[in-house]
């Protein structure tokens, strides 16, 4: 088994910690072991072909052996899991109390009140035991999502969520130690059954929490993106594009797209891009701005850039912008005035100001 590293690769859909080394074979389906054989003979070259065949043959029989072995192993472990679940159900109140007191001791979930922690702990405990019993994680996953949805806005951090699940794992494992301290062999087997399932539960909860968090972040990014790029028409054929905040390359591209489309739909002749609200931009984005100006010209529109900060001016000079094509004015008012001149407007007061 010189290539044992190959056999011990992670199998898709199975977290690496779920099984002991022995059960890796049981994770391989028939088609996968075929692939494995393909991999081995693919790497072996012509001279080693027969060696590879012999190897793959021996690996086949080894896989079959251990597959049979692990089947018996699974039966035994589900038996043990049942016993474990019965134990956890029986001592539910006591273990839950201990867990909650450990949570408060370690100062996790400080954003929540004691009663809330107790209520959530009860449901988490029950879902936990249920997941252990049924070995299905969908219900727990849904509950973890739901819980995350409720507690994320209150500022609960990832380490706290992972922390409480690991605490529960610890509390339960200690109770198992206490129960089976006389029978070391049995304890070992119980832990063999308990540890992978507990790990998987911790994993599920953590992933659900992080996924929920990422979903919220994505949603907010989307909202910011939609809000942040208005293309406004101030007069017939005059558009304003006020840019506020940090511009990353992605946002720059989006701004360009919206502006060029806006020029077309509004039949604009002059565009004022106001970047007063942008403190600084890197060379890539500055270059993008210049390209936007040129592209607008190809559509027949003149661009006036207003409100350049000293830093941006420095960046533009550093990347060597052709100043002939960049039409810049100090502030937005000046920019609009110049745009009106270009369009042939003349603003005159209709009466003396009162």
């Amino acid at each position, binding site marked *: 088994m010189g290539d044992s590293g190959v056999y011990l690769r992670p199998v898709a859909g199975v977290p690496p910690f779920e099984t002991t080394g022995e059960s890796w074979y049981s994770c391989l389906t028939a088609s996968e072991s075929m692939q494995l054989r393909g991999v081995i003979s693919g790497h072996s070259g012509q001279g080693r072909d027969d060696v590879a065949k012999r190897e793959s043959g021996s690996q086949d029989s080894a896989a079959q052996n251990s597959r049979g072995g692990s089947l018996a192993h699974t039966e035994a472990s589900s038996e043990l899991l049942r016993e474990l679940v019965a134990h956890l159900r029986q001592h539910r109140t006591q273990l839950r109390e201990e867990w909650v007191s450990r949570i408060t001791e370690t100062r996790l979930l400080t954003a929540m009140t004691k009663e809330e922690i107790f209520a959530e702990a009860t449901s988490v405990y029950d879902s936990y035991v249920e997941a252990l019993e049924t070995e299905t994680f969908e219900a727990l996953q849904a509950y973890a999502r739901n819980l995350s949805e409720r507690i994320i806005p209150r500022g609960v951090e990832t380490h706290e969520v992972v922390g409480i699940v690991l605490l529960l794992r610890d509390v339960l494992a200690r109770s198992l130690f206490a129960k089976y301290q006389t029978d070391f062999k049995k304890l070992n087997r119980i832990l063999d059954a308990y540890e992978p399932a507990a790990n998987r539960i911790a994993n599920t909860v953590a992933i659900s929490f992080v996924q929920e968090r990422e979903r919220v972040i994505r949603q907010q990014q989307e909202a910011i993106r939609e809000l942040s790029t208005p293309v406004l028409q101030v007069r017939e054929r005059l558009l304003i594009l006020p840019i506020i905040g940090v511009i990353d390359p992605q946002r720059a591209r989006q701004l*360009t*797209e919206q502006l*060029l*489309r806006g*020029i*077309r739909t509004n*039949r604009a*002749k002059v565009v004022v891009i106001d970047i007063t609200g942008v403190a600084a931009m890197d060379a890539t984005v500055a270059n993008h701005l210049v*390209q*936007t100006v*040129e*592209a*607008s*010209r*190809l*559509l*027949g*529109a003149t661009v006036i850039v207003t409100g350049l900060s000293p830093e941006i001016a420095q960046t533009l000079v550093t990347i060597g912008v052709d100043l002939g*094509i960049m039409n810049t004015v100090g502030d937005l008012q000046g920019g609009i005035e110049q745009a009106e001149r270009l369009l042939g407007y003349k603003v005159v007061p209709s009466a003396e100001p009162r």
Partner: protein
Amino acid sequence: MEVPILKQGEFLIATFQAALSDADLKSLRIGLVQQVVRFRSRAVIVDVTAMDVMDSFASRTLREIAQMIRLRGAETVIVGIQPEVAFAMVQLGLTLEGVATALDLEEGLAYLNEKFKTTN
């Protein structure tokens, strides 16, 4: 496919079709430069609205057309460049510098009318 060249008053209008081969572009270049003198036109409008891809050859040819027509004593306006095409061209460095551009045919005609009204 040949590009039709239409005479409209003092201007010539050439409208690009969807897919043009390099040979078509070359014959358009010759045709425009010949006809601009034959019809004593003051300007040429090249309408590229139908082009959703502009490669470097097409872009260079457009610039050459504009420069040749200037040497023949007339002016060129490129109209109808699509937003995506415009940005792709700029990113490739094909900015048609020194060539007038307008949003569409109407704008191009308005630009030229305005321009020649003041010089008359």
